[in-house]
């Protein structure tokens, strides 16, 4: 007997090599594709959130331009307007914009040295709506008229249609890119798995000619490639989740987040990646093994 080998202690070894150098390339390719697909998914979610944010901000507020009438000073008129608007159902808050702030808004157009004191600068009242039941522009106008205030209500409706259209395009574009990347990833995972399977043709032939049933051989490869793809999917998804987390942390309230507002909950979206990658690889391996066995039979 071999000194190192005791047949009584022998246990069957795995029928496929535990480690195969060719598997490294397969895992790398799948991991990169999963990473890209996950990044696109996170980008899509961020685009959706950004789009919802843009429309939400516009629909959740209104600006009222107040013109003083008679001897009433603009500041007093603006104060009365804010008071009247605050009582309208669906308004969360109404406050006057200080004169300095109103002038600052005009500064880019009129310059710093303009004789602003001589100009009839209108006073502005900003209105924050109740998010659940926002007041309509008509209700605000009605309240102002009832209080005898000459004012114009701008509920941003002119912008909202354009913004909503842009937001819709952003959402669909993100979804389209994600679907393209995800299907390309699935196709490449399938091809890479088939290519790796071809390298095991000799093993498949020996098992087949030794009387192994097709299902026995198919399961062997299906399990192996599903495991490899799951591992690769885990790497890819983790990489994308780290990038998403960094974007979230680096952005905070500023920087990246207003453009691509990734939320912590979005990171959960990459969780199914290892399972999906494993599923695609398992199906590809199954089909490839069945094809090879079909050729042999």
């Amino acid at each position: 007997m071999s000194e190192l080998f005791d047949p009584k202690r022998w246990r069957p070894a795995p029928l496929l090599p535990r480690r195969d150098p060719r598997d490294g390339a397969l895992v790398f390719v799948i991991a990169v594709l999963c990473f890209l697909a996950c990044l696109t998914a996170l980008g899509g979610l961020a685009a959706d959130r950004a789009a919802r944010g843009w429309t939400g901000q516009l629909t959740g507020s209104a600006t009222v331009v107040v013109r003083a009438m008679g001897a009433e000073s603009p500041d007093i008129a603006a104060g009365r307007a804010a008071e009247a608007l605050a009582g309208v159902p669906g308004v969360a808050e109404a406050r006057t914009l200080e004169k300095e702030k109103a002038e600052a808004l005009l500064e880019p157009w009129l310059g710093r040295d303009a004789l602003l004191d001589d100009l009839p600068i209108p006073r502005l009242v900003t209105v924050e709506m109740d998010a659940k039941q926002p007041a309509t522009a008509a209700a605000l106008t009605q309240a102002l008229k009832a209080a005898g205030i000459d004012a114009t209500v701008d509920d941003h409706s002119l912008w909202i249609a354009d913004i909503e259209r842009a937001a819709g395009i952003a959402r669909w574009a993100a979804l389209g890119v994600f679907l393209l990347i995800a299907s390309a990833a699935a196709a490449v995972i399938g091809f890479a798995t088939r290519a790796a399977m071809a390298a095991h043709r000799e093993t498949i032939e020996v098992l087949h000619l030794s009387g192994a049933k097709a299902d026995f051989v198919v399961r062997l490869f299906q399990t192996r490639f599903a495991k490899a793809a799951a591992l690769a999917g885990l790497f890819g998804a983790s990489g994308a989740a780290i990038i998403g987390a960094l974007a979230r942390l680096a952005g905070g309230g500023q920087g990246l987040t207003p453009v691509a507002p990734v939320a912590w909950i979005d990171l959960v979206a990459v969780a199914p990646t290892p399972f999906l990658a494993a599923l695609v690889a398992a199906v590809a391996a199954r089909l490839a093994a069945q094809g090879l066995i079909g050729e042999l039979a």
Partner: protein
Amino acid sequence: MRYGRSTEVLKDVSFALAPGSFHFLTGPSGAGKSSLLKLIYLAERPSRGTIELFGRDVEAIAPSDRPYLRRRIGVVFQEFRLLDHLTAFDNVALPLRIAGGKPEAYRTDVAELLSWVGLKNRMHALPPTLSGGEKQRLAIARAVVNRPDILLADEPTGNVDDAHALRILKLFVELNRLGTTVLIASHDEDLVARSGQPVLHLEGGRLRAFGRSLRGGQA
């Protein structure tokens, strides 16, 4: 039989091997010996004609039943076809494992067989570390480990010395005595003559002689 659109490699070959018989398959290179063996161990299909195994037309056998048929046939491939990532022990145990046997039921048999073919100290070795002769003996052990009803061997003594060739021949004869039908393709005319077993002789894809021993006379 033909491969793809090539010319026929076997033509009008018709013979029957009685259960428990022992034959050598001889002929020059390219005569069709390996192709004939492939047809019998179900690695190829005939382009015309029929093959019966164990009294059944193989074309009529459902694909799901073919594995069971293959388990009754032991094959020693010319190029060994060992699985390089499995130890010698695992390679020999492979057919028993595929058949669903439990390791504790067959590991002693595997160890004894490996000892018998002279690989007692190489049980844990991987095929790439074995010599040509050792690989050949390992391939033979794998082919006979489940005591097949038919044993087919393609040049099984091609890489071993005379002493080992005779030892292998004795193993085949022993298996044959136990009821296994044996068909061995061989170039080794000396071994074939010494064995005194009947011969199927192929030339140009045709069966030129059947049943005659190289010692002379009908077997």
